[in-house]
């Protein structure tokens, strides 16, 4: 059987019946499916979990959702997606491996600098068949397998668990549901600071023998609390 390399066009004689082959000319890895070579490309990305978490926080902030109370698990991986060009010119984009429950897959292929997979690239190669991905009878002109860098993030707000998918290409967020602006959340350190301040004021106010002492004591407490707050103490 012969197959054409989707990167350089080199037509190679395939000696084995395996799904994956490496082009002897350009070293690109490609799949062969029913005699048709399928390119496998990936978006180069340097994983950075804190940046993905920051992008999610920034997105939630801008959306007006509550601040996530607790960061859960963050899993980074390249997830394979089928990109099919149909004969009528339109394209289809579908996950080639189902994402875990509650995580939303990107609805469209992200934009980025694509590179052909090399033999040693640590990408997920076990994918569902194109026929399984596109069960409806459609005429496909060209198939490509895109490896998209995704962060699957779990987080918790007010005891409720949420999931979000962050694309490493343009830091786009995909989520089935977002925490809504609910009740007010006053951080515990802030509550404690206010309680101590109020208690100190009341004690000084009640114990002071006259108005002059009371005024002086309250002023000292006020200035001390103000200085502490300016230094960031008690802001949570």
């Amino acid at each position, binding site marked *: 059987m012969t197959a054409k390399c989707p990167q350089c*066009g080199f037509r190679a004689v395939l000696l084995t019946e395996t799904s994956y082959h490496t082009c002897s000319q350009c070293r690109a890895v490609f799949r062969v499916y029913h005699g048709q070579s399928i390119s496998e490309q990936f978006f180069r990305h340097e994983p950075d979990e804190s940046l993905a978490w920051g992008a999610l926080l920034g997105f939630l902030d*801008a959306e007006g959702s509550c601040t996530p109370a607790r960061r859960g698990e963050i899993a980074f991986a390249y997830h394979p997606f089928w990109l099919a060009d149909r004969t009528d*010119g339109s394209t289809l984009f579908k996950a080639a491996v189902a994402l875990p429950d509650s995580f939303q897959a990107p609805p469209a292929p992200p934009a980025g600098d*694509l590179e052909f997979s090399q033999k040693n690239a640590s990408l997920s190669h076990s994918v569902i068949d194109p026929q399984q991905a596109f069960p409806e009878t459609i005429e496909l002109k060209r198939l490509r397998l895109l490896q998209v860098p995704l962060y699957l993030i779990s987080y918790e707000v007010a005891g409720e668990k949420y999931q979000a998918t962050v694309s490493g290409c*343009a830091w786009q967020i995909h989520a089935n549901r977002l925490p809504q602006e609910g009740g007010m959340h006053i951080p515990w350190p802030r509550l404690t600071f206010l309680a101590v301040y109020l208690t100190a*004021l009341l004690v000084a106010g009640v114990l002071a023998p006259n108005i002059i002492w*009371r005024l002086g004591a309250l002023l000292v*407490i006020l200035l001390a609390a103000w200085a502490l*707050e*300016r230094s960031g103490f008690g802001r949570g």
Partner: protein
Amino acid sequence: MATIVFKCPQCGGPFEFAEGDCSSLCSFCGVTSLLVGDRGVHRLIIPERVDLKAARTSLRKLLASQEEGQAFAASFSFSGGSLLFLPFWRIRGMAMGWQWCEKETFKEEIDYDENGTRYTRRVKAPNERVFSLVAKPLSFSSPAGEYTPFGMIRVGLAGDVLQCEPMDYPVAAARGSVVDPLKGIAQARQEALAMTRDSIESEGVVRKESRIRISSEWLALLYYPVWNLHFTRGDRFYPVMVDAINGEVIKCRFPGEKQHGPFLPLAMLALLVLGWTTMPLAGVAATVLVFYLLKSRLGTWDASTIIKLLAGIPERGAGVQRG
């Protein structure tokens, strides 16, 4: 996909190169030939006119011009940026073909009522069938991928008025990241034709058939430069897209916040305690004064706003959003 026929440099036998291929094997003598450069599609690049510093300044200016002001702009720190070249399909030519349509028509009838007053009424007439030839100049651009995260829809006529250069991939890749086109030319052509069909008269049309093709087509893949900037505030991260031609911020989402100074809520609590621990009348006076201060400062009696002020929680403002 265009196919180009070459002669093998070793044996002279003909062999084919498909568009996009850069190597091919001669079926006669087995020698591999390499092809350098692209054929078929013009690849053009618009060089960036705005550098990283100017792009950053543009965003800072936008933030500072908002209601929240300079302090709001200064609260975001710049953490890096990179140049992206986004490919757009550019199609020019003539949209030629024919269109047949069935239109709803109306006619005015004159009638008289029982008092003899003349009036006109609009009644439906038989549908009119129109056959027309289409010949319209076509100038269309379409993103060759999904650029919603970048806030880009199309480049308009930028390719016509800005100086384009032939795409030199290694040079462009050294300056920034060259995004690969994921949308095929067939889809871009269909969009261009759909736009032409929509632009043809459609008022009162109930049914239409058309066959329009692009003739004298000039096709290009135009790479447009944008800056992808990263801003942070605390542990939050905000990506920003800036047009690298005119420096305009095309996509950003920053939450607005109104942070009240810490002194006022603390002073109000101290004033209340001072008043109520001195004498009831002073307590009442202090309470009235505190309520007056709250009203003048916040402009509302909303309980949650007052609690937020006392607890030092910033209030959500309009924020800055583009794209």
